[in-house]
């Protein structure tokens, strides 16, 4: 608390973020409601914090969303104008209102039904597009795997366990011409917040990362990695690294194989 304000200058962003517990939050909010200076500081803090939303993966709303909004707006406009016109021009209800009223109800129900149906179809379309994309990626992955596996110049390297993990085993199929390698590994779950990382080690130069993986994926033999074409590989190894991987091996080697 400073100068009678229950919030320090550096805490406005935290308040905007919403991390304070309920009681503290209510106390600060009550003060801000009556303190223009703090309200101004909070508005600025809210603006800075709101920019975190830009970290969200960008995606466009469904193409029909705008149309639905404008239809809703038009419906509101017509519903607010119509009663005024009726009152000014038609002092008494004409006989055909008995037809129009039920017809309007039916039309409204049909409109709602079509809107729901349209929305459902739009969601289905999105799901199909996502599934298609996943399928295409899987197909490309499978094709790349097949290319490596059937190529005449692909070599197989057996990966041996190290004392760090004696029961581990695995193998690498490496094609220097394609600059591709695929590998399998039978490993236990790594320690918390750790992952396995595959390395291709050239005769000269630094080890090249061939991806991070968890045991389940590598056990199924789906791991595929791109390494520099024509790299003169000497050996391969798997190390245990922090989540996210490293640019050079730092952890213990658990599998090693020489070409």
């Amino acid at each position, binding site marked *: 608390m400073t100068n009678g304000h229950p919030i320090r200058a550096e805490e406005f962003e935290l308040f905007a973020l919403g991390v304070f517990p309920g009681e503290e939050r209510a106390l600060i909010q009550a003060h801000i409601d009556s303190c223009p200076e703090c309200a101004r500081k909070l508005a600025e803090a809210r603006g800075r*914090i*709101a*920019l975190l*939303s830009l970290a969200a993966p960008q*995606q466009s709303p469904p193409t029909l969303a705008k149309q*639905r909004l404008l239809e809703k707006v038009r419906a509101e406009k017509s519903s607010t104008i119509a009663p005024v016109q009726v009152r000014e021009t038609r002092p008494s209800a004409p006989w055909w209102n008995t037809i129009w009223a039920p017809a309007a109800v039916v039309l409204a129900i049909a409109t709602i039904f079509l809107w729901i149906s349209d929305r459902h179809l739009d969601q289905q379309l999105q799901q199909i597009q996502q599934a298609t994309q996943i399928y295409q990626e899987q197909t490309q992955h499978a094709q790349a795997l097949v290319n490596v596996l059937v190529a005449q110049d692909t070599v197989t390297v057996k990966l041996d366990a190290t004392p760090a993990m004696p029961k581990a085993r695995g193998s690498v199929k490496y094609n220097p011409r394609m600059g591709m390698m695929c590998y399998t590994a039978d490993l236990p779950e790594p320690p918390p917040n750790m992952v396995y990382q595959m390395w291709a080690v050239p005769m000269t130069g630094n080890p090249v990362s061939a991806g991070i993986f968890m045991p389940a994926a590598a056990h199924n033999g789906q791991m595929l990695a791109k390494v520099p074409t024509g790299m003169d590989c000497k050996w391969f190894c798997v190390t245990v690294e922090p989540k996210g991987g490293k640019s050079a091996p730092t952890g213990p080697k658990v599998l090693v194989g020489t070409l």
Partner: protein
Amino acid sequence: MSRAQRAEQQNDSDWSLLERIVQKDESALAALYDRYSGLVFAEATRILRDSGAAEEVLQDLFYQIWRTAEKFDPARGSLPGWLLVAARNRSISRLRRRSSRDDEELTENSVVLPCNLETAAAQNQLLGRVKTILSGMPDGQREAIELAYFEGMTHSEIAEHLATPLGTVKTRIRSAVEILKQALA
């Protein structure tokens, strides 16, 4: 609408569009929607992980602007700022099944953005900047601030979620906020 009219609308300020919305000009609402719907939808989708629910939040916000545009006061802050804050509040309310006070948000939550988001170029530039700021944070700080912003968690909830001491979580979030402030200054 002619190409010339559309270009003219794209150059309109938010507040001139709002003035036209007060006069019930649909094309002004459409222009405002084109300008900010992507940002709002992306934010709501990230929080709710459901594009259908995110669209409902998007529709509600723009419909509220249509109905109550006269309540916006330029002196109280920025329209895109209000949109981003309101989208977050409503999405988190839905996510955590809390009630939200939609009508009051409009007048109570004033937001001053430190930058202009009225053009696509400005939005793209800022998108890159924010992502750079976040990617430069240590993993623990980034994870904590994202849980607070996108999941609406308090200090204690984040500590429990990450099985991390409360003091550590507070320090991480405070540091992350400080990095954000300095980078945007």
